[in-house]
């Protein structure tokens, strides 16, 4: 009991902003004010987590993470179902108590099994989006959004509700009940309800999985844009590659409760640390592409120094990722000039050759790394060697473009 009290006190103490030099300065109050303002502005803090959690009969989940950003950034927890992503997220939120380890956010300790510290979700000041949004069915949209603002003065509360509703395009829905609005709108109400309390971090559990496919595409675009607008850092759980690419900045790959790899999204996709990560991410080449122009549904894109054609969907913008499956890359010997329907022919040098079952995995350097998968027979017929130059043939349809939000007027607060 005494130990618990001590831990609580320490936790309370640590949770207070530290202003060590303030006492020695003449303009005491000014410096205090400024530090409080800085706290509000940056809003992000380092999150360090290293914990274990096991449900009876479930796999042992070992989660390790260190994230510190100065600006807005989204970290994707990616992995197959049962890999422990949602459990990890729930532990970060305080909805689940890990068995061992610690979680620290800035200078607050949220969980420490040795010091017996556990900060409940109410005191972590985070926003959590449940998979099915979990809007309170007995409250209207406006009352759902204002739920976390009970202690705030009425005028200010109504003002904040109206503001966030306008920002997220929910105006006019104030008096509807959750079952009277669409899935996409429900998702935005859930987002509004979470962010209107000004959390320091957002945790999103499969935010798009409850939506049907056409809505999903639309909401995916809006979500990234909204989060950028709000400049709210966060963590997002998904098992969908397109979600990860379209929404994430960083990515953590989980398999069987273990963190396999973490890093920038594109790096994890294009340079998986090992075979299991490669299998989980399932895409072989992911590169940042610039879209030069679009005509007749065909986009001209630039990757590094190479120019390529890709099929353009309606929602492409300047900034996109291009994804290419190794199976879709056809290799030809240089010098052959057959007429073909394929739009893209790239000359590349073979960097490496690896056996993969009955196939050969070929890494080419075409100005960007391109992976191809050919049969062993083709490999022997073509007599491929490291250092050789070959032509990589790609149909425009094999280049999948994933846009990142919509082109935006830069946020003045970000400047």
């Amino acid at each position, binding site marked *: 009991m005494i130990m618990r009290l001590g831990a609580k006190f320490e936790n309370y103490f640590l949770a207070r902003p530290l202003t060590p030099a303030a006492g020695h300065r003449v303009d005491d109050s000014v410096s205090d004010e400024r530090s409080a303002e800085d706290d509000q502005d940056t809003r992000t803090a380092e999150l360090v987590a290293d914990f274990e959690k096991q449900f009876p009969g479930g796999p042992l989940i070992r989660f390790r993470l260190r994230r510190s950003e100065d600006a807005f950034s989204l970290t994707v927890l990616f992995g197959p179902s049962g890999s422990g992503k949602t459990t990890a997220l729930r532990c970060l939120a*305080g909805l689940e108590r890990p068995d061992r380890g610690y979680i620290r956010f800035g200078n607050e300790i949220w969980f420490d099994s040795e010091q017996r510290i556990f900060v409940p979700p*109410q005191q972590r000041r985070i926003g959590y989006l449940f998979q099915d949004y979990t809007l309170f069915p007995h409250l209207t949209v406006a009352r759902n959004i204002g739920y976390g603002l009970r202690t705030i003065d009425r005028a200010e509360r109504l003002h904040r509700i109206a503001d966030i509703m306008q920002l997220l395009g929910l105006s006019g829905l104030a008096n509807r009940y959750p079952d009277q609005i669409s899935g996409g709108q429900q998702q935005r109400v859930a987002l509004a309800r979470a962010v209107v*309390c000004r959390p320091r971090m957002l945790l999103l559990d499969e935010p798009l999985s409850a939506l049907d496919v056409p809505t999903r595409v639309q909401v995916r675009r809006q979500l990234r844009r909204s989060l950028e607008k709000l400049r709210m850092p966060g963590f997002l759980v998904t098992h969908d590659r397109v979600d990860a690419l379209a929404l994430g900045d960083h990515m953590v790959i989980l398999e069987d409760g273990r963190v396999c790899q973490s890093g920038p999204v594109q790096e994890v996709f294009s340079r998986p640390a090992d075979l299991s990560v490669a299998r989980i991410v399932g895409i072989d080449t992911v590169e940042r592409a610039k879209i030069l122009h679009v005509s007749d549904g065909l986009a001209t894109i630039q990757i590094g120094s190479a120019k390529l054609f890709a099929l353009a969907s309606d929602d492409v913008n300047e900034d996109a990722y291009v994804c290419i499956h190794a199976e879709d890359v056809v290799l030809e010997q240089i010098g052959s000039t057959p007429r073909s329907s394929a739009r893209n022919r790239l000359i590349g040098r073979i960097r490496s050759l690896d056996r993969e079952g009955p196939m050969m995995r070929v890494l080419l350097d075409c100005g960007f790394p391109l992976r191809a998968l050919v049969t062993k027979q083709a490999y022997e017929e073509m007599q491929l060697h490291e250092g050789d130059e070959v032509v990589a043939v790609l149909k425009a349809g094999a280049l999948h473009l994933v846009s990142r939000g919509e082109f935006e007027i830069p946020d003045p607060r970000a400047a």
Partner: protein
Amino acid sequence: MDFEAIWLSVRLASLTTLILLTFGLPFAYWLAVSKWRFKFLLEAIVSLPMILPPTVLGFYLLVAMGPQSPFGQVYAAVAGRFLPFSFQALLIASVLYSAPFALRPFIAAFAGIERRFVEASWCLGESRIVTFFRVVCPLSWPGILAGLVLAFAHTLGEFGVVLMVGGNVPGATRTVSIAIYDEVQALNYKQAGLTSLVLLGSSFLALSVTYLLQRKGGIL
């Protein structure tokens, strides 16, 4: 018609329902969400009055309240009179006897609330208690209402326990059901019939309103 008895029964039922609402609601919620190992024992005890003959419950209560028991002696020392055959004795007995009729619907309603609603409220900064009043209660009101109506109606009609601990003191423990019994004993069938009709009508009305509201609650 024995208006004194009807008024007494209504007072008894209202107070019983109020006590069950105040103390039963939090207790039922604890029973619904608790993961305590020996919870099943408490659940069994709460439901015991449903299958126990009223005379058995009444007998034990009478003994517990009597001048021989420590509880009875303490009560007598404080209140200046003995507990049995008083309105207070009737109230204690009614609360215990009607508890399962209130608590079981409460528990069923609370157990039906999905945990994620509660968790969503926690993540929005609300404590467990505030969450109980802002989310759990509004979402389970049909069950809460059903429990209250059942407890009220059940207290209104109880007979065996009342007879055992209350006796038949007009204005203090002579309830409607006892009054009807007396009329029948005195071969006063007309009076008995009239009072019975009041009891039948009010019970039917209460249950109809409950089921109607529950259906409305389902649509909302």
